[in-house]
């Protein structure tokens, strides 16, 4: 319903100079097991900064990748200057004047700034040798426009991340783009560098370029944008004029209200302190992290990507060495040097990235399930395959893993089922403390809710559970207590019952309360 209101309002107010330069209509995109975008609309005018807002997994990046020709949409239209266009490769998108500035930099560190800027497009003498003078001169002009202090001849690898970001922008400017998409450009920038970047974006805007700006930092969006479009779970939620709305309204729209309704939150019967972390820190990553988790409760770690949550968990699990602080398990001071130690002490970690860290994709479901405690299934070095099958089939039933059989390669499972195999792997080690890092990232709503219920049940059955998540509904659904992190430190701890979405958002964006 929201959709219609937003659209009709707009067409009523549409003035000649506000005609959209770029229009996405009813764009849909599915990945195996997930509907990433469902009939999403977006229109961007020349000379405006249009913010695209949504939680992780809302579909922002997917939408932009469609725009940049990296993904092909399953349905819908892309209209650029009243022309229906198809963009089936980044090259084609570039030819249409649509350029994406990536979240991860895609530069070649060993080449010079100018070579990076003109990569694939180097000015040449008669089509053969690179014309270095023209290269450096043209690059210099662009750098000047961006107020950059470094030289075209500097090796890229010597620049700071912020300056590399500038090079990435310079590279886009070579093509005199009509639309520039910034995908979370400030994630790794300092405040000063941000100011410089914003200056560049404003300058681009004034020269008539349409800018799509993706971020979930409210303050930036309100500082910079003219309009805001909100996505949630792959659906279009509405478009706001920035001047006529406020953070609350937008946040509301972004989060929605459809929490897993039937999950109850009676205060848990707290058992002993299963895990106590005191003053943990690694220089440059995070500092002074202290918290504890009791038997029978779920503690949610909420924060933006890059806040240091994953690094804290990896440290507890023995994958990183802390510079300061200590970890106690069941009241015992421990030094955990490796994941192997961690498993011996009853810890389990469902990692952030199931494909890179969770599964050996080429191995079968059964083999993955027993990987973390293969020694339990081994006598004199000999694997008891029958016992392995029994345990996998047990978890297949318990976690409702949809798969044709124990010998099926995990590569071919959907995201939700892959994640359940990873969870099964850790449950089969009978952990006392289970850490789940982004347990439902990129999986469908159904599996998501199943996993949420499972997490609650695990806590009830006597586990101490930590859930790291960037999704507010998830944190609110599963946690008994919530720890908010921002920029490598804990900003606040909340009880589930006394927290509001607003205070949470403030706590994780560093706005002091």
């Amino acid at each position, binding site marked *: 319903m929201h959709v219609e209101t937003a659209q009709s309002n707009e067409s009523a107010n549409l003035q000649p100079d506000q005609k959209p330069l770029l229009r996405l209509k009813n764009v849909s995109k599915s990945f195996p097991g997930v509907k990433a975008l469902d009939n999403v609309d977006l229109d961007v005018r020349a000379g405006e900064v249009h913010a695209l807002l949504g939680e992780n997994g809302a579909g922002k990046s997917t939408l932009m990748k469609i725009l940049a020709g990296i993904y092909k949409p399953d349905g819908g239209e892309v209209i650029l200057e009243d022309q229906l266009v198809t963009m089936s490769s980044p090259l084609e998108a570039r030819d249409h004047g649509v350029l994406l500035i990536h979240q991860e930099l895609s530069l070649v560190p060993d080449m010079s700034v100018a070579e990076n800027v003109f990569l694939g497009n180097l000015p040449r003498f008669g089509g053969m040798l690179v014309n270095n003078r023209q290269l450096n001169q043209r690059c210099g002009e662009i750098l000047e426009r961006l107020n950059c202090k470094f030289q075209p001849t500097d090796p890229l690898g010597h620049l700071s991340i912020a300056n590399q970001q500038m090079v990435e922008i310079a590279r886009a400017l070579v093509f005199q783009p009509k639309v520039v998409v910034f995908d979370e450009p400030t994630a790794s920038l300092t405040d000063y560098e941000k100011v410089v970047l914003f200056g560049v974006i404003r300058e681009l805007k004034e020269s008539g370029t349409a800018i799509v700006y993706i971020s979930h930092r409210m303050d930036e969006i309100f500082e910079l944008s003219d309009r805001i479009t909100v996505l949630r779970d792959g659906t279009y939620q509405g478009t706001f004029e920035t001047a006529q709305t406020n953070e609350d309204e937008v946040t509301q729209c972004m989060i929605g209200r459809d929490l897993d309704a039937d999950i109850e939150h009676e205060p848990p019967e707290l058992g002993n302190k299963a895990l106590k972390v005191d003053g943990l820190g690694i220089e440059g990553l995070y500092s002074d992290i202290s918290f504890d988790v009791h038997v029978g409760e779920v503690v949610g770690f909420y924060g933006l990507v890059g806040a240091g949550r994953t690094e804290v968990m990896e440290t507890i699990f023995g*994958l990183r060495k802390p510079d300061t602080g200590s970890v106690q398990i069941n009241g015992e001071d421990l030094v955990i040097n490796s994941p*192997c130690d961690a498993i011996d002490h009853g810890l389990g970690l469902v*990692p952030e990235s199931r494909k890179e860290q969770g*599964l050996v994709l*080429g191995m079968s479901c059964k083999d993955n399930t027993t*990987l973390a405690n293969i020694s339990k299934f081994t006598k004199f070095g000999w694997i008891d395959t029958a016992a392995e099958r029994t345990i996998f089939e047990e978890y297949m039933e318990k976690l409702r893993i949809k798969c044709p059989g124990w010998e099926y*390669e995990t590569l071919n499972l959907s995201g939700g089922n892959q994640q359940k195999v990873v969870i099964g*792997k850790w449950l089969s080690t009978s952990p006392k403390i289970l850490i789940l890092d982004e347990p439902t990232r990129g999986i469908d709503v159904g599996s998501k809710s199943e996993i949420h219920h499972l997490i609650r049940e695990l806590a009830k059955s006597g586990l101490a559970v930590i859930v790291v998540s960037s999704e507010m509904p998830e944190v609110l659904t599963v946690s008994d207590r919530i720890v908010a992190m921002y920029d490598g430190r804990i900003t606040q701890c909340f009880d589930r019952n006394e927290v509001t979405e607003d205070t949470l958002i403030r706590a994780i964006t560093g706005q002091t309360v």
Partner: protein
Amino acid sequence: MKALLDSFRPGLTNREITPLQFFGKHGITIAFFLCVVIFSLTTDKFLSTDNFFKVVMQASIIGTIALGVTFVVIGGNLDLSVGSLLSFATVLVVDLHDKVGPGMAIPLMFVFTLLIGSVNGFLIGYLRLNSLIVTLGMLSAIQGITLVYTGGKNVDISNDENTWFDIFGRGDLFGIPVPALIFIVSAIVLQVVLLKTSFGRKVFAIGGNGTAALFSGLRRNRLVFSTYLLSAFTTACAALILGSRVMGSQNNVGQGYELLVLAGVILGGTSLLGGSGSIVRTVIGVLILALIQNGLQLLGYPYYSQWLVTWVVIIAAVWLDIAAKRGKLFSSY
């Protein structure tokens, strides 16, 4: 037996299989029988027990080394040092034979060969250096050590009548040549180790996804180390066969073996990226190389023609493998 049968269908899946995928999976077995059929039809000396054992004998040295190297490659690494390691081990065992007698020479040779293997394993497993660079460096370093040791001379066993050392290369048991026996028995044992023990499972895991293996509490460094010990061990076994058969050794006798070994492993379909592979298929791969060599000799082609044919066979095998994974013969970009 089931272990052996299982190995013919690595990566069990329930998907329907296209003809291309079928060739990709079973191409090596088909190629093997194709070689047998072609050579049987073109030369009548080919199909005989004598010739069969000759082929297995020819394959046994490369094959035995390839068994250990298969573990290294499944674990996601390479071992190019086996060629000069073979020279080193053969020279050592032959030279020590006259000095301390075969009873001492053999264990000493094993100790020193494993020592070199553990240097590889330490550098690649614990220091996490690139295996290609480490073993390529080792290839020349070990050759250097061997040349220093021999002073550039070749070594001989002076009295080859009066020693039991010849049993490994020239003896036979129940009518089967001992080299063939060593090769076949090691292959069966290692196939079972690969498929049925937790060590084998862990090697697949570190090669398939080292990060996930680490997150699952596997000690990646120790496992990589072990695979290099294993390849040094099988290389030592091969040196035993070689030294005993020749009863002497040139100081660079193993030169070029590293590539033949790798060719056999690749031909067997073991992925150079790690995570998949099979001992049985490596055996078939090595046998194909030996068959080609043998068949071309019987047909009267010069010795060096086999190199070209081997190259063609390897390219065809790798192409089929890639094409099967990609689902089509040519890349579209």
